[in-house]
Every structure is written in C-alpha cells, then in structure tokens.
C-alpha cells in the first residue's frame, strides 16, 4: 500500500477498540491511488456490523483532511476473517484483552 495513504488510514481506529487501527483489523482490503483520488475497499467483520457506516465515514474524513478525494466502497468480495488481523493488531488485541469472538467466549466457561 502507498505509504502516505497507509499512514493516514492507520490513524483511523476501530470505534470500540482504540488500540486497533482499521488497517491492522484487516477490514481495509484494497487501496488504489489515482491522482488525488483514493479508492478504498472495505469489508465488515460481520455482515450486521453496526459500526460499518461510521468506520466508512471516518476513513473518508481522514482522507479529506489530508487533501484527498475518497471513494470508499463496502464489499464482500474479499471476506473478513480473524486471519486478516495483522501481527501488530493481534498483539495489541491480546494486550487489550479482547482476543475472542463473543460466541466463542460462551464456549469457554
């Protein structure tokens, strides 16, 4: 990914997990830069994620603030799974204590 854009996108955090950027979370699946326009593809962690619109808006704002024109699309082309969390993201999550899927939590009592 283009390092400047990567840097900008890394400033956008998961709304409920402030230690985790959307890049590390793995929900940004594709970035293309065409002149001043940045095309971003995002995919939700789960289909019903209520934070998706919010995350999309945050990505747009971050790019606009740095003088880019964002074109963000939400797609299922590439599906999110926990494998997409970066090593850095996994370490941050572990430290934060949020390493599990809520359903799996219920299997661990």
């Amino acid at each position: 990914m283009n390092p400047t854009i990567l840097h900008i996108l890394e400033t956008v955090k998961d709304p409920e997990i402030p230690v985790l950027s959307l890049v590390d979370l793995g929900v940004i699946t594709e970035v293309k830069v065409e002149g001043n326009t940045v095309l971003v593809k995002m995919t939700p962690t789960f289909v019903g994620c209520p934070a998706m619109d919010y995350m999309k808006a945050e990505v747009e704002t971050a790019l606009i603030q740095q003088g880019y024109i964002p074109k963000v699309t939400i797609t299922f082309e590439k599906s999110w799974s926990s494998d997409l969390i970066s090593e850095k993201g996994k370490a941050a999550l572990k430290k934060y204590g949020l390493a599990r899927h809520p359903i799996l939590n219920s299997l661990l009592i």
Partner: protein
Amino acid sequence: MYGGGNTFEGIKTDSLAQEDPGMLAAFEARIERGEKIEPSDWMPQLYRKQLIRMIEQHAHSEIIGALPEGTWITRAPGFKRKMALMAKVQDEVGHAQLLYSAAETLGKSREQMIDDLINGKSKYSNIFNYPTFTWADCCFISWLVDAGAIVNQLANAKGSYGPYCRALDRICAEESFHLKYGHHCVIYLASGTAKQRQMFQEALNRWWPPMMHFFGPSDKISAHTEVLMRWKVKMGTNDEMRNQFLDMYVPKIWELGFTIPDPNLKKNESGKWEYTEPDWEEFKRVINGDGPCNKERLEVRRVAEARGQWVREALKTPKTSYVTPLA
C-alpha cells in the same frame, strides 16, 4: 452503563483501628504516588469491602440497565437502529461480565453477587427503576444515561484498584460508541416530525429528575467519604460529577431545541450550574425498593436465574476445553 452516586456506607472512624499502622501508611503512600493496587497486594479491609460494594453495584447496574433498553430491541425502527441497539445492549451485558470478574479478584464470587442482587441486598443504579414508555425513552438512556455513566467511569478509571481500572478502560471505549449512537438517535428525533420531537420532549420531562438523581445525593447530605477519596475509590464528589455532566450535555440538549424541565437551571458566573434541588426523599424511596419498576426489574432477574438453573447445573459436569481463534 452505570450510575454513580452509588451508596457508600458512612464510614465509622474506628473501622481502621485494627489495621497495621505501618502497612496502612505504606498502602496510602503507594496510592498517593499513583500506583495501582493489585489483587494480591495488601489492602485494608475497609478498602476491599467498599471496592467490592462499588464494583458489584456497577456490574448490577449493567445487567439491570440492559432491561429497559433491551425491551426495545424487538421494536427498534429499522435495521440500522435494531442492529446498533442489539450491539449496545450486548456490550452492557459484556460490561457486567467484565466487572463481575474484576470484583471476583477481591474475593466475592459472581454467584454470591447475583444472589445478593436478587435478594435486594445489593443496589444498582437507581435510574433503571424507571420505565421506558416510548422509543424516545430508550433514546434518552442510550444518549444521556450513558453520557452520565461515562462521566463517572472516566473518573473511576483513574482510581487505585488495577483490575477495576483496566475493566473501565475497555468499558469506556465501548461507551463512547454508545454515546454516539444515542446522540444520533436523538438528533433524528429532534430533526424529525412534530410527533417525533414531542416524543423526545416528553421523554426528557420524564427522565430529567432521575437523571439529576443519577450522580447521587448532594454533597451537603451524603455520607462522609473523605477516606474513600484519599484511597481513590471515589474519584469526585457527587456534585462535581453532576456539574461536569450538566456542563457537557445541557448545551447539547438546548442546541437540539428541547426544553429542560427545570426553570432554575443556569450556569452562574463562577461556571457552576445552578438547579432546583432534586427530590432526595424520592431518591431514597426508590433506592430502598419503592420505585416504579424495582419489583419488575428484580423479578425479571429472578425468573431468568431460576429458569437457567438447570443449564448452569448441567455445565458443572466435566467437559473439554476449546481452542480460541486468536489467543
């Protein structure tokens, strides 16, 4: 979410008499330096007792607090609201889980705490003893009760007990999302039809008095808690918290064009908010069990516990453990 104004018992002056003075001094010095106290560290009995009481009240407030909003999940208007409200209420139950674990580090089990809740021995935030008649009531909670909770929780996160502070750090991150969601809901009501505006105005009228109660009795009449403040168990006086809330949210409510049902509400020259003194007799009545929904709330909990008894029993038989995907 969580109401502050948790009831602390008045502290008897002799309750520290049996503690070792040297240990006590060292303990207080650590807190003074800003160190966190961990479960295996030495601590005065009174510290342990008051912390259990506070964290437990907080945990109960999360699960009981899930009820008045929870009943609107099945009625939320539209997919967006429905999914966000589900996620929010689920978070609240998750907060309870985190907090019960934090309290357990002090030596009281979750079962005991839930028993005490059902028996009416331990308290929870008074505000959840009021009913949610309309969708707008539910929005009031999501926005303003959560806002009040955040004021409290952000302060408490700077407290002295490590496990509680760490739980609160996570909780606060989620709460800030709740607040955005709740505010969003209210903005839609404010900018919607006349009926929608009226719905929220009525909710505001109903909920303002309990919201003022939320932070607990005025400093003038509440129990002396100096030692708890010194130990960083309690992080601000009730009036300070209330003032902070008013300072942050009254302008936002006014901005949306709603009227707060208190003609005396205003900020004075010294930057403090003045308001009609809330009815503390009602507060006492409700906290002692005689509010509009106390019985109903506890009954729901009691029934849920009783109906789930066979499940918990069946889980006690040995079983395999499972792999987590990320750990």
